[in-house]
């Protein structure tokens, strides 16, 4: 049973455009929702994270939008750049340092 569903699987965006990646979860016990960025041959790096008591969090060009009632959250990358081309994973975890549950990833390509 996949607990975090991520879409789209791949995404092509023009340089300067907005990249949007969506995730949905089922377990209402999740209380922490991070996004990770992974470049080829590297481990995932924490990008930005949100807790369900906040509807939006912004860090630079990256914004998480969170809809608790719909059990959905999304990553927006503003002014997308070729250097943003990577695979992005959403994740979720319950309290108590429990393991992260990951979505299947979105491969983003930003083209000039």
């Amino acid at each position, binding site marked *: 049973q996949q607990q975090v569903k991520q879409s789209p699987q791949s995404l092509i965006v023009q340089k300067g455009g907005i990249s949007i990646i969506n995730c949905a979860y089922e377990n209402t016990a999740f209380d922490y929702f991070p996004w990770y960025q992974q470049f080829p*041959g590297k*481990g995932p*790096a*924490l990008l930005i994270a949100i807790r369900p008591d906040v509807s939006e969090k912004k860090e630079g060009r990256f914004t998480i939008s969170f809809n608790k009632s719909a059990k959905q959250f999304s990553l927006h990358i503003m002014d997308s750049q070729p250097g943003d081309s990577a695979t992005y994973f959403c994740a979720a975890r319950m309290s108590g340092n*429990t*393991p992260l549950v990951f979505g299947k990833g979105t491969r983003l390509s930003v083209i000039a």
Partner: protein
Amino acid sequence: EAGVTQSPTHLIKTRGQQVTLRCSPISGHTSVYWYQQALGLGLQFLLWYDEGEERNRGNFPPRFSGRQFPNYSSELNVNALELEDSALYLCASSPRAEMAFFGQGTRLTVV
């Protein structure tokens, strides 16, 4: 501050062999998580160690095992290797908070 370090970075094994992967967490982090990232399958949770104890394991057969040492470093052992075990094995560590930080991974190829 050093990040999560994993060794080796790459290795090639023959089907049926055994392999040990190693992970050193960030200083002060007591929890270590192992994930398998096979091509096109995302990150699959393998094992969670905290304070030297196995806290949880994912849906993997018993030939995947590990341990955590008193200094919080960890080993992942895989016995009777199969071709489908070929993957990037990632270790992450976490303090007593939500954030988890990943190492660069060990690329295992089984031939």
